């Protein structure tokens, strides 16, 4: 049986995208501390893991698309960097969205625990390669 689209393993050199709403001020390109850890804070829908998207399946513009009239940025990370830091990534394709992946160690339920706090800091302050945008929806 063929592997469903998006369910194949994520290669180390794959880039992953995370959308950041501009309005929350979690990213400020003019600031020395430009990206804050809470840019990687799970929300209520992240029950099984923090959502990111594979660049293999979704363009950065598509990832940035959100609520009409709002502005977003997109953080870019490399899968291998996360794994090297001990952060697991699993493919979790959705109906019509094969590029969806999750970080199962970062969920809404455990978001205030010690390890997720460390990982948020790691993702924002060390592992994020760059932030693209702004993108206007």
């Amino acid at each position, binding site marked *: 049986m063929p592997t469903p689209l998006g369910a194949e393993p994520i290669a180390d050199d794959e880039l992953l995208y995370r959308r950041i*709403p501009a*309005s*929350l*001020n*979690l990213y*400020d390109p003019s*600031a*020395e*501390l430009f990206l*804050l*850890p*809470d840019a990687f*804070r799970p*929300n*209520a*829908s992240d029950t099984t893991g923090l959502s990111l998207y594979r660049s293999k399946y979704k363009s950065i513009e598509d990832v940035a698309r*959100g*609520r009409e009239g*709002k502005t977003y940025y997109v953080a870019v990370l490399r899968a291998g960097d996360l794994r090297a830091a001990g952060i697991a990534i699993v493919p979790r394709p959705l109906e019509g969205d094969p590029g969806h992946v999750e970080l199962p160690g970062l969920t809404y339920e455990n*978001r205030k625990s*010690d390890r997720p*706090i*460390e990982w948020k*800091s*790691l993702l924002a*302050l*060390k592992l994020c390669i760059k932030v693209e945008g702004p993108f206007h929806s």
Partner: protein
Amino acid sequence: MVSVATIGFNMNLPTTSEAPWAQFAGPLAANAVARPEAAQPHNGSSTECERWRAVVGSRLAEWQENPAVLEDEAVEAPRLEIIQWAAQVAMDLRAAGLPAPQRVAATGDGGIVFVRQEGPVCSTIEVASDRSVELVVVEDSRLVSRRRLR
């Protein structure tokens, strides 16, 4: 003799024992504005006062004026009550003598977070949606301490 500079060791970067936020043990006194001594922070620096005013007077004031700007997909925007509470907490932190944060943001989880980074030490003070206030100190992405301030 090898200079420490040649091995890339920066003796000026603060550690957690030197970063002011990381050292703050609390508790955080309430309603600092009501106390006469709260008019000037302990360190007496007008620059620091200005920095705190920029935080409270800028972003928080904007959000108090129009909390709807924080609403978005998959985001729990902070209630007006929490934004106002965060502004009060900021004044209390200033009165306690803490240097101003470099950033203030909405957490996306109904709260407001103040963030200060000093070298490898990143400290956050989060005002959560349940009105609790917590200081979390992370050094080189390792959690060093966390404590409730209120």
